[in-house]
């Protein structure tokens, strides 16, 4: 045997797959041109997509940012050699009115002797994320931040509406008082009596003592922000405020309602079922009209019950009823064994709910909950029917300016973009949360 053996001492590096199978080409072959029928569809679709894009970009890409009126935009289009009603986008309206679309009539320092207060809603908005961080991303931020979350519900109204700092402080003290009374009585007598007396004490504080307390303290330590009336709220600030309040309150109320609906106590159950079915049986617009017109007639003349507060209440009630049903769906999906397991561990009702039932039920309901949130946020535009200036109603007011009369696409496009950012953000977060909480039951 001559020395002819050849033994490869090292492995050949694997060859790249053929160019037609990977990368852009491969992807296109697999997904777009996998057969003659799909190829035709792809070509036809591409044709239309490109046609629409060309039209859209041609319409949107025009140097009209600094125009001050629609006729001025028209002059610019003429210089570009275009004509017709939709020759191009007149972005001047956004350039001039975007602060109004964001802040409505919030004091902007234009009138003499007034300050530009728009930093307050901006700060409240930024702090909202700080306050939400421990709830949304509990594993990535220091746990101590949760105290700020507890403070935020009192800080936000103060920032937005202004007034003396003692109003939110005294409102918060009501909760403290109620809790202290509950704790004291729950140990000496029974839990139920403690709960009832605690709630009553808090209400007595809020209704009768709180205003005296805050005005007394305000006269001693006058720490106050310039107050802003609800009527001056508008634009996205109004939408976000209504949305945040309704979302923030509807989750806890919805949980309570869902538990109440499953309760064995007849009165509690009847009340919850009646409430949920009634609210779900009427459209939100009806509730808003009730808030805006009927309540006015029922209340004594001269009563000034803030219109935005009425809207908050109605939207929150509406969202809560839907939330309750979403969470009930989560509760119903839990196997009976979970409840029995909790019982067998000797947990009482609230312990079982807190430690075993709710974490699972809420996790199951995440997509439904977030859908409800998104729906509520978009429903805030309905307040335009009662004359509040949400972004959509503002477009109407902006068009009433003779300079901008007749502009539709620019304004609606801008609003749609902002709404999309918020709703898409919420939707992506819910997907992230689902992945994070995935514990492999399936």
């Amino acid at each position: 045997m001559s020395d002819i053996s050849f033994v490869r001492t090292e492995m050949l590096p694997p060859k790249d797959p053929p160019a037609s199978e990977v990368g852009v080409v491969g992807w296109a072959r697999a997904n777009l041109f996998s057969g003659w029928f799909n190829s035709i569809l792809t070509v036809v679709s591409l044709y239309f997509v490109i046609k629409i894009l060309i039209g859209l970009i041609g319409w949107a890409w025009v140097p009209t940012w600094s125009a001050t009126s629609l006729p001025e935009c028209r002059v610019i289009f003429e210089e570009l050699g275009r004509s017709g009603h939709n020759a191009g986008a007149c972005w001047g309206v956004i350039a001039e009115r975007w602060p109004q679309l964001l802040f409505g009539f919030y004091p902007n320092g234009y009138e003499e002797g007034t300050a530009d207060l728009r930093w307050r809603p901006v700060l409240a908005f930024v702090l909202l994320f700080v306050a939400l961080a421990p709830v949304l991303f509990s594993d990535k931020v220091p746990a101590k931040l949760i105290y700020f979350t507890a403070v935020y519900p009192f800080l936000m109204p103060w920032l937005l509406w202004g007034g003396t700092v003692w109003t939110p402080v005294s409102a918060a003290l009501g909760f403290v008082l109620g809790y202290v009374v509950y704790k004291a009585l729950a140990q000496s007598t029974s839990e139920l009596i403690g709960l009832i007396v605690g709630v009553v004490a808090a209400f007595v504080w809020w209704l009768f003592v709180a205003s005296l307390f805050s005005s007394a303290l305000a006269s001693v330590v006058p720490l106050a922000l310039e107050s802003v009336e609800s009527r001056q709220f508008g634009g996205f600030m109004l939408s976000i405020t209504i949305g945040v309040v309704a979302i923030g309150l509807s989750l806890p109320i919805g949980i309570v309602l869902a538990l109440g609906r499953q309760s064995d106590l007849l009165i509690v159950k009847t009340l919850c079922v009646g409430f949920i079915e009634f609210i779900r049986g009427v459209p939100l617009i009806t509730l808003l009209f009730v808030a805006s017109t009927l309540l006015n007639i029922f209340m004594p003349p001269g009563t000034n019950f803030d219109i935005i507060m009425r809207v908050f209440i109605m939207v929150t009630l509406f969202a809560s009823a839907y939330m309750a049903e979403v969470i009930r769906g989560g509760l119903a999906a839990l196997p009976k064994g979970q409840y029995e397991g909790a019982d067998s561990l000797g947990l009482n009702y609230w312990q079982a709910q807190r430690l075993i039932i709710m974490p699972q039920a809420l996790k199951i309901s995440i997509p439904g909950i977030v859908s409800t949130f998104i729906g509520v946020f978009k429903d805030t535009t309905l307040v335009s029917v009662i004359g509040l200036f949400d972004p959509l109603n503002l477009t109407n007011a902006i068009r009433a300016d003779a300079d901008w009369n007749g502009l539709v696409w620019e304004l609606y496009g801008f609003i749609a973009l902002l709404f999309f950012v918020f709703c898409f953000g919420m939707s992506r977060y819910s997907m992230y949360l689902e992945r994070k909480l995935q514990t492999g039951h399936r």
Partner: protein
Amino acid sequence: MNNSVFFGALTVAGLAAGAAAAGTLDDVKARDKLNCGVSTGLVGFSAPNANGEWEGFDIAVCRAVAAAVLGDPSKVEYVPTTGKTRFTALASGEVDVLARNTTWTFSRDVDLKFEFIGVNYYDGQGFMIPKELGVSSAKELDGATVCIQTGTTTELNLADFFRANNISYEPVPIETNAEARQQYLAGACDVYTTDASGLAATRATFDDPSNHVILPEIISKEPLGPLVRHGDNEWGDVVRWTLNALVAAEELGITSANMSEKAAGTDNPEINRLLGSEGNLGEMLGLDADWAQKALAAGGNYGEIFAKTIGEDTPVGLARGLNAQWTDGGLLYAPPFR
């Protein structure tokens, strides 16, 4: 999340309920602010500018009343109302006066228990068509498709007009003026009908206004005026005579430019009575002697307000027409200040 404000509001509501309602004039003076119900946006009549200040023909009424009563035209809280909420807002006391291009009709005056204190704009329903249609009279519109806002009196007027002339039409229901504009320009309807002032304002926004004509027929009477609640005649008088003062001032030749000169006293006793250098008309209303001066200083007389907000030099470009002084062949006729 908003408990503090909520309960605060409840408390305020409870406290406020205790205070019995005095006369509206006293309420406004005590509040030092006039609550004025306005439209959420109507070209030329009421619209917020980029800084959030309200401007327009209806706004001028609010400003004049505030100036007459409180001495400062900026002491107005504008309460935007929709067509659906406006009457409840007035009836419930949320606003003191409603200046929202509202047509004075029998049922609104009598049945809804409001008091129209006059007419600040005589409007009427008209038709707009593209010129290329070659129609010169509304009676030739047989078989036309018509863009029409639903749930308004214009819808009923249109049906009446076509029935009376024994011609047919096909309605294209729309909700807002902006929608109507888009539909009309897209050719979804041959004709757009609404108040003539609205047609003019819409046409002014077209790329080629000259290709569209407003037909000569006006098929309805739409006297637009400010209104107040029934039963508070003192307040009604204040608003009525403030509007009359604006109209009379134009007739008497008092403008914001020459007012201070005329206020010193003139040979015309009516001017003197109006401006307060003679007589005690202001006192009778429960206002200062120079109430009309202040009202006029807010935005000038009727003619000046008209020219500034909706007149021929503005984009809306309305001619005076019926809204000229009676001496010029119009309908404006202020009762004497005596």
